[in-house]
């Protein structure tokens, strides 16, 4: 049988398995192993074992559990609370200030955690009760947290960038740094979105308090200096060339552990909580990686990606058209597929096409991660929405999704801006040491 046909059948089977709720990693593993068996029977078992062990022992990937650990330690050490308080003291007096503070808090927490779920969950627990106390509209408060949480995979450290780097063999450090300015841009766009929503419907955000004095603001900022310090050391260390991304992750986790000890937050229940959360998140990512790399090998054996790049070349599409088409496809897939699943399914196919067109893969990585963020809040399977639903059980899902649309549009604006002005993503990586 022609390998292209095997590839097509493989993709069809994969979607079928995903549809019947086979875990994403196992679905890719099953199709990948079966597909390799059809093309090169002797290779299927060694590839399966080799990829599982290869990803498990990949030194570059130690970054994932270490950054997850850092984020979880930051959560239990109350550093997230300090961050929120600091953001609130500076922004709280504006209309919609609590929602804006939640977003800025999420952005800050994202710089300690590579997971959007952790960012939404941790900041949601802190900020949602405050917004409910001041009678914020449920759609605005939950929408702000779900959207703010997505910054977790754009602002470094980011699990999305690590997986993308692994798939495309780009530098994790460069991708991390490339995410900084777009992350700041998106944070500003989210705050602007809150302002627009509240200006249009003032009843959605009643005034929550007076302007904090300069002394209160400075004190709150000082309390948040722990978290700011760790961010400066880790992300600044990568930018300055002092640390590799793996070293930054280890140092960051260790510093977060020290802060926990200093603040007497390292209680037994907290230790258990941190260990469980870190292991669960790590397990989630690695099972997908096992499947993704077996599937990627299968796709490589079929040669379909190369065929696709030849086809694209023959059609004479411009690089802009191709990037646009992939992003649109990503957004559509995001409405029914899990974000990381889209990443590992599409990137191995898209990479040869993009590289043949001379597209900068770091810039494309930033675009794709913003699109991935959109998938995280797109109905009906936006996973961040379900996280927020978990901490706001009294708010109907429809209300949360209704509150998300303005933020989804802000993300679309961010995609367009980064698409039209690549230096937003590429300036910092090009100047890093």
């Amino acid at each position: 049988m022609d390998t292209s046909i095997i590839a097509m059948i493989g993709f069809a089977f994969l979607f079928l398995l995903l549809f019947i709720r086979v875990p994403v990693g196992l679905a890719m593993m099953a199709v990948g192993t079966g597909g390799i068996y059809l093309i090169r029977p002797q290779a299927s078992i060694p590839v399966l074992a080799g990829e599982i062990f290869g990803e498990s022992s990949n030194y570059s990937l130690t970054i994932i559990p270490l950054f997850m650990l850092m984020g979880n330690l930051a959560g239990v050490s109350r550093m997230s609370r300090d961050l929120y308080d600091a953001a609130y003291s500076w922004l709280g007096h504006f209309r919609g200030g609590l929602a804006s503070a939640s977003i800025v808090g999420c952005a800050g927490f994202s710089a300690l955690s590579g997971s959007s779920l952790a960012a939404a969950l941790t900041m949601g627990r802190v900020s949602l009760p405050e917004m409910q106390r001041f009678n914020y509209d449920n759609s605005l408060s939950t929408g702000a947290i779900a959207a703010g949480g997505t910054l977790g995979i754009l602002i470094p450290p980011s699990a999305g960038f690590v997986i993308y780097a692994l798939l495309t063999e780009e530098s994790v450090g460069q991708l991390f740094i490339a995410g900084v300015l777009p992350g700041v841009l998106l944070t500003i766009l989210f705050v602007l979105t809150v302002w627009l929503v509240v200006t249009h419907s003032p009843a959605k955000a009643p005034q929550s308090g007076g302007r904090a004095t300069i002394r209160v603001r400075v004190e709150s900022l000082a309390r948040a200096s722990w978290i700011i310090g760790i961010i400066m050391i880790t992300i600044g260390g990568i930018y300055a060339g002092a640390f590799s991304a793996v070293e930054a992750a280890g140092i960051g986790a260790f510093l977060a552990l020290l802060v926990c000890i200093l603040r007497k937050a390292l209680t037994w229940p907290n230790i258990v909580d941190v260990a469980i959360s870190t292991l669960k998140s790590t397990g989630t990512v690695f099972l997908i990686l096992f499947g993704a790399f077996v599937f990627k090998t299968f796709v490589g054996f079929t040669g379909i990606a190369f065929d696709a790049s030849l086809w694209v070349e023959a059609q004479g599409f411009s690089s802009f058209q191709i990037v646009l088409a992939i992003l649109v496809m990503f957004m559509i897939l995001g409405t029914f597929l899990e974000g990381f699943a889209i990443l590992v399914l599409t990137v191995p196919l898209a990479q040869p096409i993009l590289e043949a067109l001379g597209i900068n893969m770091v810039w494309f990585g930033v675009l794709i991660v913003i699109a991935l963020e959109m998938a995280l809040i797109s109905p009906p399977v936006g996973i961040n929405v379900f996280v927020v639903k978990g901490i706001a059980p009294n708010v109907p899902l429809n209300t949360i999704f209704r509150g998300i649309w303005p933020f989804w549009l802000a993300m679309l604006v961010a995609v367009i801006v980064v698409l039209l002005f690549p230096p937003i993503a590429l300036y910092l990586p090009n100047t890093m040491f």
Partner: protein
Amino acid sequence: MPDFVPASLLWAETQLGRLAGLFAVLGSIALLGLTLITVVAVFWRYVLNDPIFGLEDVSSMSMTVVVAAAVAFGAYHGAHVNVSVIKFFAGRAITRFTDALARSIGFVIVGIATYAVFTKGTCGLECGAITNNLSIVHTPFYFVLGFALLAYALLLFLQLLIGLAHWRSEDPNEPAD
């Protein structure tokens, strides 16, 4: 009326829960080790200007233990994501069949993966399966991964049986959103 679930299945589920707990302990220790190894490597490299040879190998192998434990523990706690679109089209009348099929497929592929990992791991030194610097033999780490995958396979099989036992009522292991 709830279906009858044999006590042996509940017992097996409890035992797998204990096994997951053991993996969690193992994984947590390895995770702490991984953090400390990285800190030591950075300190010796940048502060003492005397990099320790081969620490990367120790990190990689610690990482294998963390990942093995995380996959097994995550499986027991429903951390492995699936796409739950089907629930928008079909109710329990359909999903009881598709879930059984999904678990069967999952059991088969994880079973094959377990076999693959044990087979390749057994080869060890003869196949050159050692780390680059310290020549640590991969075999025990393949085995840790193999046991983690075996635990996952057993869990999927158990969930299949429990799902079948709950054929006419709600499935306690219904895949999460």
